[in-house]
Protein backbone atom coordinates (compact mmCIF):
# COMPACT_ATOMS: atom_id res chain seq x y z
CA UNK A 1 0.00 0.00 0.00
CA UNK A 2 1.02 3.57 -0.34
CA UNK A 3 3.27 3.91 2.71
CA UNK A 4 5.12 0.66 1.96
CA UNK A 5 5.20 -0.61 5.51
CA UNK A 6 6.78 -3.94 6.42
CA UNK A 7 4.44 -6.46 8.00
CA UNK A 8 7.05 -8.01 10.29
CA UNK A 9 7.99 -4.84 12.23
CA UNK A 10 5.60 -2.97 14.54
CA UNK A 11 3.55 -0.72 12.28
CA UNK A 12 3.39 2.10 14.82
CA UNK A 13 7.22 2.36 14.91
CA UNK A 14 7.40 2.54 11.13
CA UNK A 15 4.78 5.30 11.12
CA UNK A 16 6.77 7.24 13.76
CA UNK A 17 9.93 6.92 11.64
CA UNK A 18 8.07 7.99 8.53
CA UNK A 19 6.56 11.13 10.09
CA UNK A 20 9.90 11.93 11.82
CA UNK A 21 11.57 11.83 8.46
CA UNK A 22 8.80 13.96 6.87
CA UNK A 23 9.42 16.59 9.57
CA UNK A 24 13.23 16.44 9.37
CA UNK A 25 13.19 16.65 5.57
CA UNK A 26 10.83 19.61 5.64
CA UNK A 27 7.76 17.99 4.09
CA UNK A 28 6.05 19.22 7.24
CA UNK A 29 7.42 22.58 8.42
CA UNK A 30 7.65 23.81 12.03
CA UNK A 31 4.17 24.91 13.12
CA UNK A 32 2.40 23.00 10.31
CA UNK A 33 -0.83 21.28 11.21
CA UNK A 34 -0.81 17.51 10.81
CA UNK A 35 -3.80 15.79 9.18
CA UNK A 36 -6.19 14.14 11.66
CA UNK A 37 -5.54 10.63 12.94
CA UNK A 38 -8.36 9.36 10.73
CA UNK A 39 -7.00 11.09 7.60
CA UNK A 40 -3.49 9.81 8.26
CA UNK A 41 -4.82 6.27 8.92
CA UNK A 42 -6.71 6.27 5.61
CA UNK A 43 -3.68 7.67 3.73
CA UNK A 44 -1.37 5.04 5.19
CA UNK A 45 -4.09 2.36 5.04
CA UNK A 46 -3.49 1.36 8.65
CA UNK A 47 -5.70 0.87 11.67
CA UNK A 48 -6.67 4.20 13.34
CA UNK A 49 -5.65 2.75 16.75
CA UNK A 50 -2.12 2.21 15.43
CA UNK A 51 -1.98 5.72 13.97
CA UNK A 52 -3.20 7.11 17.29
CA UNK A 53 -0.40 5.26 19.11
CA UNK A 54 2.18 6.65 16.65
CA UNK A 55 0.91 10.23 17.11
CA UNK A 56 1.07 9.85 20.89
CA UNK A 57 4.69 8.67 20.57
CA UNK A 58 5.55 11.68 18.35
CA UNK A 59 4.12 13.91 21.07
CA UNK A 60 6.13 12.10 23.72
CA UNK A 61 9.42 12.71 21.90
CA UNK A 62 8.45 16.35 21.44
CA UNK A 63 8.20 16.49 17.64
CA UNK A 64 4.52 17.36 17.62
CA UNK A 65 2.18 18.93 20.14
CA UNK A 66 -1.57 18.87 20.35
CA UNK A 67 -3.90 21.76 20.95
CA UNK A 68 -6.98 20.44 22.64
CA UNK A 69 -9.54 20.94 19.92
CA UNK A 70 -7.49 22.17 17.00
CA UNK A 71 -5.48 19.05 16.30
CA UNK A 72 -1.76 18.33 16.17
CA UNK A 73 1.03 20.62 15.06
CA UNK A 74 4.72 20.18 14.26
CA UNK A 75 6.92 21.65 16.98
CA UNK A 76 8.31 25.13 16.39
CA UNK A 77 11.37 24.21 18.44
CA UNK A 78 14.01 23.89 15.71
CA UNK A 79 16.57 22.59 18.19
CA UNK A 80 14.33 19.62 18.87
CA UNK A 81 14.00 18.90 15.15
CA UNK A 82 17.79 19.16 14.83
CA UNK A 83 18.23 16.73 17.69
CA UNK A 84 15.98 14.18 15.96
CA UNK A 85 17.84 14.81 12.68
CA UNK A 86 21.15 13.94 14.40
CA UNK A 87 19.62 10.84 15.96
CA UNK A 88 18.38 9.70 12.56
CA UNK A 89 21.78 10.40 11.00
CA UNK A 90 23.45 8.40 13.77
CA UNK A 91 21.10 5.46 13.22
CA UNK A 92 21.81 5.53 9.48
CA UNK A 93 25.59 5.64 10.10
CA UNK A 94 25.40 2.72 12.54
CA UNK A 95 23.37 0.78 10.02
CA UNK A 96 26.08 1.46 7.40
CA UNK A 97 28.81 0.22 9.73
CA UNK A 98 26.77 -2.86 10.66
CA UNK A 99 26.30 -3.80 7.02
CA UNK A 100 30.00 -3.22 6.27
CA UNK A 101 30.93 -5.44 9.19
CA UNK A 102 28.65 -8.15 7.80
CA UNK A 103 30.61 -7.98 4.57
CA UNK A 104 33.87 -8.33 6.51
CA UNK A 105 34.92 -4.72 6.04
CA UNK A 106 36.38 -3.17 9.20
CA UNK A 107 35.65 0.26 10.57
CA UNK A 108 38.73 2.01 9.09
CA UNK A 109 38.13 0.56 5.66
CA UNK A 110 34.45 1.55 5.86
CA UNK A 111 35.45 5.11 6.80
CA UNK A 112 37.87 5.30 3.85
CA UNK A 113 35.07 4.28 1.48
CA UNK A 114 33.20 7.40 2.50
Amino acid at each position, binding site marked *: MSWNLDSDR*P*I*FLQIVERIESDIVSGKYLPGDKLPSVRELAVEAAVNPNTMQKACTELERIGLVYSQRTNGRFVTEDKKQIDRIRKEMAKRTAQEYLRKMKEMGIDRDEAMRLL
Partner: protein
Amino acid sequence: MRGENMSIILECNNLSHKYGKKTALDDISFSIETGKVVGLFGPNGSGKTTLIKKIVGLLLDDKQSVKIDGKPVGETTKAIVSYSPDRLAFKGNRKISYLLDFYELMYDDFDRAHAEEVLAGQGIQKDECIGKLSKGTCEKIQIILVMSRKAKLYILDEPFSGIDPVARETVIRIMLQNMSEEASLLLSTHHIQETEQIIDDAIFLKEGKIVFQKSVEEMREESSRSLNDAYMEVFR
Protein backbone atom coordinates in the same frame (compact mmCIF):
# COMPACT_ATOMS: atom_id res chain seq x y z
CA MET B 1 -10.32 9.00 21.36
CA ARG B 2 -10.09 5.40 20.24
CA GLY B 3 -8.43 2.94 22.56
CA GLU B 4 -9.50 4.49 25.83
CA ASN B 5 -12.15 3.20 28.22
CA MET B 6 -12.10 -0.26 26.74
CA SER B 7 -15.26 -2.22 27.12
CA ILE B 8 -16.45 -5.43 25.54
CA ILE B 9 -18.82 -5.20 22.59
CA LEU B 10 -18.94 -8.89 21.68
CA GLU B 11 -18.52 -11.91 23.86
CA CYS B 12 -18.68 -15.57 22.82
CA ASN B 13 -18.65 -18.14 25.62
CA ASN B 14 -18.29 -21.83 24.78
CA LEU B 15 -20.10 -21.40 21.49
CA SER B 16 -20.71 -24.59 19.50
CA HIS B 17 -22.69 -25.42 16.38
CA LYS B 18 -23.47 -28.63 14.52
CA TYR B 19 -24.89 -29.21 11.07
CA GLY B 20 -26.52 -32.60 11.66
CA LYS B 21 -23.74 -34.71 13.11
CA LYS B 22 -20.96 -32.54 11.74
CA THR B 23 -19.41 -30.12 14.25
CA ALA B 24 -18.85 -26.72 12.65
CA LEU B 25 -17.96 -24.75 15.78
CA ASP B 26 -16.41 -26.46 18.76
CA ASP B 27 -16.48 -24.62 22.09
CA ILE B 28 -15.40 -21.20 20.87
CA SER B 29 -14.69 -18.42 23.39
CA PHE B 30 -13.39 -14.96 22.61
CA SER B 31 -14.32 -11.32 22.99
CA ILE B 32 -13.97 -8.10 21.01
CA GLU B 33 -13.19 -4.80 22.72
CA THR B 34 -14.80 -1.53 21.74
CA GLY B 35 -12.81 0.29 19.06
CA LYS B 36 -10.87 -2.76 17.86
CA VAL B 37 -10.54 -4.25 14.41
CA VAL B 38 -10.43 -8.03 14.67
CA GLY B 39 -9.45 -10.30 11.78
CA LEU B 40 -10.93 -13.76 11.47
CA PHE B 41 -8.83 -16.12 9.38
CA GLY B 42 -8.82 -19.79 8.46
CA PRO B 43 -9.14 -22.11 5.47
CA ASN B 44 -12.45 -22.81 3.74
CA GLY B 45 -14.69 -24.88 5.98
CA SER B 46 -12.96 -23.81 9.21
CA GLY B 47 -16.18 -22.28 10.57
CA LYS B 48 -15.75 -18.55 9.88
CA THR B 49 -19.09 -18.01 8.17
CA THR B 50 -20.91 -20.24 10.68
CA LEU B 51 -19.45 -18.16 13.52
CA ILE B 52 -20.57 -14.95 11.83
CA LYS B 53 -24.06 -16.33 11.18
CA LYS B 54 -24.38 -17.13 14.88
CA ILE B 55 -23.36 -13.58 15.81
CA VAL B 56 -25.75 -11.89 13.40
CA GLY B 57 -28.63 -14.22 14.25
CA LEU B 58 -28.91 -16.14 10.97
CA LEU B 59 -28.27 -19.36 12.91
CA LEU B 60 -30.10 -19.90 16.16
CA ASP B 61 -27.98 -19.41 19.27
CA ASP B 62 -30.31 -21.33 21.59
CA LYS B 63 -27.78 -21.54 24.44
CA GLN B 64 -27.24 -17.76 24.31
CA SER B 65 -23.49 -18.23 24.07
CA VAL B 66 -23.14 -14.92 22.21
CA LYS B 67 -23.60 -11.58 23.93
CA ILE B 68 -23.47 -8.30 22.05
CA ASP B 69 -23.25 -5.19 24.21
CA GLY B 70 -24.24 -7.50 27.06
CA LYS B 71 -27.40 -8.83 25.40
CA PRO B 72 -28.22 -12.13 23.70
CA VAL B 73 -28.62 -12.08 19.90
CA GLY B 74 -32.04 -10.71 18.93
CA GLU B 75 -33.82 -7.60 17.69
CA THR B 76 -31.90 -5.29 20.06
CA THR B 77 -28.51 -6.58 18.94
CA LYS B 78 -29.43 -6.56 15.24
CA ALA B 79 -30.10 -2.84 15.60
CA ILE B 80 -26.45 -2.19 16.55
CA VAL B 81 -24.73 -4.72 14.27
CA SER B 82 -24.08 -3.86 10.64
CA TYR B 83 -23.41 -6.97 8.58
CA SER B 84 -22.11 -7.62 5.09
CA PRO B 85 -22.64 -11.27 4.00
CA ASP B 86 -20.07 -13.30 2.06
CA ARG B 87 -21.97 -12.87 -1.18
CA LEU B 88 -23.55 -9.83 -2.76
CA ALA B 89 -26.78 -9.06 -0.97
CA PHE B 90 -28.39 -7.38 -3.97
CA LYS B 91 -29.03 -8.60 -7.47
CA GLY B 92 -31.01 -7.82 -10.58
CA ASN B 93 -32.46 -4.79 -12.18
CA ARG B 94 -32.75 -2.48 -9.22
CA LYS B 95 -31.30 1.00 -9.12
CA ILE B 96 -28.83 2.04 -6.44
CA SER B 97 -31.38 4.58 -5.18
CA TYR B 98 -33.64 1.60 -4.37
CA LEU B 99 -30.90 0.16 -2.13
CA LEU B 100 -30.63 3.51 -0.36
CA ASP B 101 -34.42 3.54 0.16
CA PHE B 102 -34.27 -0.02 1.48
CA TYR B 103 -31.48 0.76 3.96
CA GLU B 104 -33.25 3.90 5.11
CA LEU B 105 -36.44 1.94 5.75
CA MET B 106 -34.71 -0.96 7.49
CA TYR B 107 -32.18 0.80 9.70
CA ASP B 108 -32.75 3.80 11.95
CA ASP B 109 -29.00 4.37 12.21
CA PHE B 110 -28.45 4.60 8.42
CA ASP B 111 -26.95 7.94 7.36
CA ARG B 112 -28.28 8.31 3.83
CA ALA B 113 -26.67 11.67 3.11
CA HIS B 114 -23.31 10.23 4.12
CA ALA B 115 -23.77 7.13 1.94
CA GLU B 116 -24.70 9.29 -1.06
CA GLU B 117 -21.61 11.44 -0.51
CA VAL B 118 -19.29 8.42 -0.39
CA LEU B 119 -20.96 6.86 -3.47
CA ALA B 120 -20.52 10.13 -5.37
CA GLY B 121 -16.90 10.28 -4.22
CA GLN B 122 -16.41 6.86 -5.84
CA GLY B 123 -18.05 8.10 -9.05
CA ILE B 124 -21.05 5.81 -8.60
CA GLN B 125 -24.35 7.25 -9.92
CA LYS B 126 -27.53 6.64 -7.92
CA ASP B 127 -29.66 5.91 -11.00
CA GLU B 128 -27.44 3.10 -12.24
CA CYS B 129 -28.82 -0.44 -12.27
CA ILE B 130 -27.02 -2.91 -10.04
CA GLY B 131 -27.18 -5.66 -12.65
CA LYS B 132 -24.99 -3.66 -15.03
CA LEU B 133 -22.15 -2.97 -12.62
CA SER B 134 -18.89 -4.87 -12.16
CA LYS B 135 -18.42 -7.16 -9.19
CA GLY B 136 -15.87 -4.76 -7.73
CA THR B 137 -18.31 -1.84 -7.92
CA CYS B 138 -21.10 -3.94 -6.37
CA GLU B 139 -18.79 -4.88 -3.50
CA LYS B 140 -17.90 -1.21 -2.98
CA ILE B 141 -21.60 -0.28 -2.89
CA GLN B 142 -22.34 -3.02 -0.38
CA ILE B 143 -19.51 -1.91 1.92
CA ILE B 144 -20.53 1.76 1.61
CA LEU B 145 -24.10 0.87 2.66
CA VAL B 146 -22.95 -1.31 5.55
CA MET B 147 -20.41 1.25 6.79
CA SER B 148 -22.91 4.13 6.54
CA ARG B 149 -24.85 2.77 9.48
CA LYS B 150 -23.78 4.26 12.81
CA ALA B 151 -23.40 0.79 14.24
CA LYS B 152 -21.47 -0.40 17.28
CA LEU B 153 -20.21 -3.54 15.59
CA TYR B 154 -19.49 -4.03 11.89
CA ILE B 155 -19.17 -7.56 10.59
CA LEU B 156 -17.77 -8.08 7.12
CA ASP B 157 -17.65 -11.61 5.75
CA GLU B 158 -15.06 -11.79 2.96
CA PRO B 159 -15.54 -8.36 1.38
CA PHE B 160 -12.68 -8.89 -1.10
CA SER B 161 -13.50 -12.09 -2.93
CA GLY B 162 -13.24 -11.88 -6.68
CA ILE B 163 -12.32 -8.21 -6.87
CA ASP B 164 -9.13 -6.72 -8.26
CA PRO B 165 -6.27 -5.34 -6.10
CA VAL B 166 -7.16 -1.68 -6.70
CA ALA B 167 -10.80 -2.27 -5.75
CA ARG B 168 -9.58 -4.18 -2.66
CA GLU B 169 -7.51 -1.19 -1.60
CA THR B 170 -10.50 1.10 -2.16
CA VAL B 171 -12.73 -1.16 -0.05
CA ILE B 172 -10.14 -1.07 2.78
CA ARG B 173 -10.03 2.72 2.64
CA ILE B 174 -13.84 2.94 2.65
CA MET B 175 -13.81 0.76 5.78
CA LEU B 176 -11.21 2.90 7.57
CA GLN B 177 -12.77 6.17 6.53
CA ASN B 178 -16.34 5.37 7.46
CA MET B 179 -16.20 3.19 10.52
CA SER B 180 -17.83 5.23 13.27
CA GLU B 181 -15.57 6.07 16.21
CA GLU B 182 -15.93 3.78 19.20
CA ALA B 183 -17.18 1.07 16.87
CA SER B 184 -15.59 -2.35 16.46
CA LEU B 185 -15.13 -4.37 13.31
CA LEU B 186 -14.93 -8.12 12.75
CA LEU B 187 -13.43 -8.90 9.37
CA SER B 188 -13.33 -12.39 7.92
CA THR B 189 -11.07 -12.79 4.90
CA HIS B 190 -8.50 -14.91 3.08
CA HIS B 191 -6.58 -11.78 2.14
CA ILE B 192 -4.17 -11.64 5.07
CA GLN B 193 -1.38 -9.67 3.45
CA GLU B 194 -3.68 -6.88 2.29
CA THR B 195 -5.48 -6.59 5.62
CA GLU B 196 -2.92 -7.32 8.33
CA GLN B 197 -2.00 -3.65 8.70
CA ILE B 198 -5.53 -2.65 9.61
CA ILE B 199 -6.09 -5.37 12.18
CA ASP B 200 -5.57 -5.05 15.95
CA ASP B 201 -6.19 -8.67 16.92
CA ALA B 202 -6.20 -11.83 14.83
CA ILE B 203 -8.12 -15.04 15.38
CA PHE B 204 -7.33 -18.22 13.44
CA LEU B 205 -10.02 -20.88 13.15
CA LYS B 206 -9.18 -24.48 12.31
CA GLU B 207 -11.82 -27.18 12.10
CA GLY B 208 -14.21 -25.18 14.27
CA LYS B 209 -11.67 -24.37 16.99
CA ILE B 210 -9.67 -21.23 17.78
CA VAL B 211 -6.01 -22.16 17.34
CA PHE B 212 -4.45 -18.68 17.48
CA GLN B 213 -5.49 -15.42 19.06
CA LYS B 214 -3.08 -12.47 19.34
CA SER B 215 -2.51 -8.77 19.07
CA VAL B 216 -0.77 -8.36 15.72
CA GLU B 217 1.46 -5.46 16.83
CA GLU B 218 2.57 -7.39 19.94
CA MET B 219 3.46 -10.34 17.74
CA ARG B 220 5.56 -8.12 15.46
CA GLU B 221 7.31 -6.67 18.49
CA GLU B 222 7.97 -9.98 20.23
CA SER B 223 8.96 -12.19 17.33
CA SER B 224 9.43 -9.95 14.25
CA ARG B 225 6.84 -12.01 12.43
CA SER B 226 4.08 -10.88 10.13
CA LEU B 227 0.57 -12.24 10.48
CA ASN B 228 1.05 -14.01 7.17
CA ASP B 229 4.13 -15.82 8.59
CA ALA B 230 2.07 -16.92 11.60
CA TYR B 231 -0.77 -18.13 9.38
CA MET B 232 1.62 -20.19 7.27
CA GLU B 233 3.10 -21.77 10.40
CA VAL B 234 -0.31 -22.78 11.67
CA PHE B 235 -1.89 -24.01 8.46
CA ARG B 236 0.88 -25.13 6.11
